[in-house]
């Protein structure tokens, strides 16, 4: 389906918006069906793209093996450290919104890491594994400052930044039995 024909064939505003994003992301429209998104390490489109295919393969091997060694538990460590890092960020007069990116910033902010609040190496690995987008956003905050947002918007931003697996899964509607 082309971008031009998309508008005519897709009925709802939601379908049109999502179809456009799929088209831009994948180069094709997959149907726009509701799905529970779980972000992969590397999208298939990139996995096949030269010249980084070697890097992708090697990166996934390393990540997989580290996962087998037990480092996957670092995701829970990130969650557990969030309240501590939040307090630390507030103490340094960062805005409440910046504190939502706290873990990434804490990792790269010497004043916090230096206090022994977190183990920098382990959390850097965990951020790269689980929260790369949050890390990027924290870099932007450090460069560009912060501004206040409402609770509702902050909640949604966190969901977007922390990954698709956190977006609520749509309810499963059982199909009627047929004789």
């Amino acid at each position, binding site marked *: 389906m082309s971008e031009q024909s998309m508008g005519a064939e897709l009925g709802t505003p939601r379908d049109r918006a999502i179809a456009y994003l799929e088209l831009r992301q994948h180069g094709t429209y997959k149907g726009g069906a509701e799905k529970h998104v779980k*972000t992969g390490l590397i999208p298939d489109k990139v996995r096949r793209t030269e010249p980084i295919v070697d890097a992708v393969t090697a990166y996934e091997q390393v990540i997989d093996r580290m996962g087998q060694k037990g480092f996957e538990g670092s995701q829970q460590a990130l969650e557990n450290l969030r309240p501590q890092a939040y307090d630390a960020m507030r103490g340094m007069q960062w805005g409440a919104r910046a504190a939502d990116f706290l873990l990434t910033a804490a990792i790269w902010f010497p004043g916090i890491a230096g206090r022994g609040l977190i183990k920098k190496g382990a959390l850097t690995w965990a951020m790269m594994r689980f929260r790369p987008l949050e890390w990027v956003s924290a870099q932007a905050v450090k460069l*560009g400052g912060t501004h206040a947002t409402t609770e509702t918007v902050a909640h949604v931003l966190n969901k977007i930044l922390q990954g698709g697996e956190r977006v609520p899964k749509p309810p499963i509607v059982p199909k009627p039995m047929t004789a």
Partner: protein
Amino acid sequence: MNTKQATFEDRLTDIVVQIEKSGWTDEDKNALYAKISEYLHSVVLPVILKFTPVEELKDLANNPAKDSVDAFVELMKKPLSNPKMSEELNATIHGVLDDVETALSKGGIS
């Protein structure tokens, strides 16, 4: 595109505010948020890996005895501290936000 005027967070916040005010159902909003999240996440690691020394990464992958958190962090420091990577990443994620803004207009939100 207003990359120079607004940060990534500013733009994403504005987008979320527009969607919240759209009158769409929560189900529709969540579907769009999931798509935005998936799209944004999909562009980050590829850019980082583009600036990662491939030979060192392959060496780590081929030597199970070498890989550790410390070794991984040392390796990733290189792309993460490369200003060109930051520039490319910034341009890439702002490009995604350009697409999201276009998508909102196609969905009648703008």
